[in-house]
């Protein structure tokens, strides 16, 4: 079982997200460590991209801040951040980024570096099932999970995506881009049930979750809840105080999620 899949073994998982280099190198390190201290089960680190088409305004703004602070933002700087994080926590980590970033570094070199630093999975929103073939064998060789997305409009694609998945399956709560919302697609239970018919790979729901109530609801349906924009908002609002706030927020969200019985 992959390190990421193990996260879901004994309880429902809470998975926060923050963007690398927002606001800067040390801030990223401190924020990820705070999320780990707060009890996060896995942290998604977003690698900023100039044109994040799957992301809503909040994460777009974080990417812009991160790239304004360092317009070149070399991938090696981000790997260095992870190395710093690794000195303080062993929490499972995944990267969320767009395929061009991985492509430019080289699929082989990128996934190799991921393994060395304990990055166990990659979420790449612009790499659908049909295009995973160029990266999948290389990622598998280095034990890096390619975490696919399944959406309320995936329909007949669900089974083939789920069968190929390792780590976990990112279930998109509703149509559109990332960002806080008050309503989710109403057939998420059916979606998760369809996935579970063909695979034991765990599921986590993301896009729009920001309150503890929502997280609890989603953790009833799936094996975990992913929260992005709400964490990014805390980083944007609280600056140097963000680690404390993130830790508190994570505690609260984790409590809401973990209370749900495991399937």
């Amino acid at each position, binding site marked *: 079982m992959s390190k990421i899949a193990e996260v879901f073994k004994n309880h429902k998982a809470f998975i926060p997200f923050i963007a690398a280099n927002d606001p800067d190198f040390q801030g990223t390190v401190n924020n990820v460590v705070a999320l780990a201290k707060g009890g996060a089960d896995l942290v998604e680190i977003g690698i900023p*991209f*100039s*044109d994040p*088409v*799957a992301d809503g*305004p909040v994460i*777009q703004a974080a990417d812009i801040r991160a*790239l304004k602070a360092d*317009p*070149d*933002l*070399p*991938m090696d700087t981000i790997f260095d951040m992870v190395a710093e994080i690794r000195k303080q926590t062993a929490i499972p980590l995944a990267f969320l980024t*767009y*395929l*061009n*970033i991985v*492509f*430019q*570094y080289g699929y082989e070199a990128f996934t190799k570096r991921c393994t060395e630093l304990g990055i166990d999975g990659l979420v790449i*929103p*612009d*790499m*659908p*099932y*049909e*295009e995973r073939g160029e990266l999948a064998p290389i990622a598998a060789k280095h034990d890096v999970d390619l975490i*696919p*997305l*399944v*959406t309320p*409009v*995936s*329909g*007949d*694609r669900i089974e083939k*995506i789920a069968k190929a998945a390792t780590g976990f399956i990112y279930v*998109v709560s509703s*149509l*559109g*881009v990332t960002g806080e919302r008050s309503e989710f697609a109403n057939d998420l239970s059916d979606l998760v049930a369809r996935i579970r018919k063909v695979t034991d790979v765990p599921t986590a729901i993301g896009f729009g979750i920001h309150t503890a109530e929502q997280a609890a609801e989603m953790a009833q349906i799936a094996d975990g809840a992913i929260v992005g924009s709400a964490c990014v908002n805390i980083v944007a609002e609280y600056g140097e105080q963000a680690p404390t706030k993130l830790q508190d927020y994570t505690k609260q969200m984790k409590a809401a999620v973990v209370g749900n019985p495991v399937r």
Partner: protein
Amino acid sequence: MTELNLKLSKNTTGRYGEYGGQYIPETLMNELDRMTKAYEHYKNDPEFKTELHDLLVDYANRPSLLYYAERMTKDLGGAQIYLKREDLNHTGAHKINNVIGQALLAKHMGKTRLIAETGAGQHGVATATIAAYFGMECEVFMGKKDTDRQRLNVYRMELLGAKVHPVTSGSMVLKDAINAALQDWTKRVDDTFYLMGSATGPHPYPLMVRDFQSVISQESKQQLQEKTGKLPDMVVACVGGGSNAIGSFANYINEPSVQLVGAEAAGKGVETELTAATVERGSDGIFHGMKSMFLQNKTGQIKPVYSISAGLDYPGVGPEHAYLAKTGRAKYVGITDDEAVDAFEYIAKTEGIVAAIESCHAVAYVQKIAPKMRKDQIIVCTLSGRGDKDVASIAKYRGVDIDE
């Protein structure tokens, strides 16, 4: 009259060598799949083809002229110059060819709402036009910088009943408009057809756009045959994303004697940072749904681009252009703002044609190359659009103060 029964290409994989593909969020994959299947079906459907033909002839004013530019030819003193007059189409640019095809497909797929991105506004105007014609809802995404420099086209779209959204994210130009249109589409796929304007994006767009624009070279080949009994020696067209160029090249790609040249926007110069010369300055990458060539930094961040022409400042090219460049079948050359503006004035004064600043990038290359060619050689240069929209900004470029 020129036969307009479009020969549509047989490529069904969406790959041009290593380029192309469908690098797009999962939310859109089923919709793209439906679109691909619908297109594969309708492109062989006689009724669809008749409708397409009738709209191109009766509504868009096709075939467009292949005009012998006698004064330019004489003045430049080399190759015979023929201009393919896409500027004479309804709505004033080649964009209508593709828009009619895609909107017709949308209608057959039961869609009621069209969305589009636009740079200079030509594609937005063409989309708004066809939406009005078909009675469909229309929303156009346009970078804020472009809504500012092309105010007339914004008003034109609104006049045609479209809603124009100025896009304020990123560098506020064409690429950002595409991001916004894609994002809008992920929110509402059921009734909405994203009508992409260039030969870019995920499959099937590059293929569809190429097919619908290939009417340009299908006509020009036949027209030149009728006039001279020959093939051209060279075909020149401007390249942003590359829709008019791929349409201008399509029917000549398998004619090895015909040189294909794409004129890219070099802005302040190919070697400067203020450029949009993707093939010369860019590298392989993955963006906007396709593997192709892009202007980007080492990490893979897409660079802001610059050109005087709103229709050419896109940081990538369509995947088939990347393939033609890589294999050497077509050549891509950078034309600076200065050269394009000179060409804008040149063709106005010698031929009495006010051509779009985008098209004048191709004209500028013709000015350079024609004198070096023999008098029995032939260049076909595509004038992709008319230049009325550019008059105010060219005046400004020349420091002339005019009341708009």
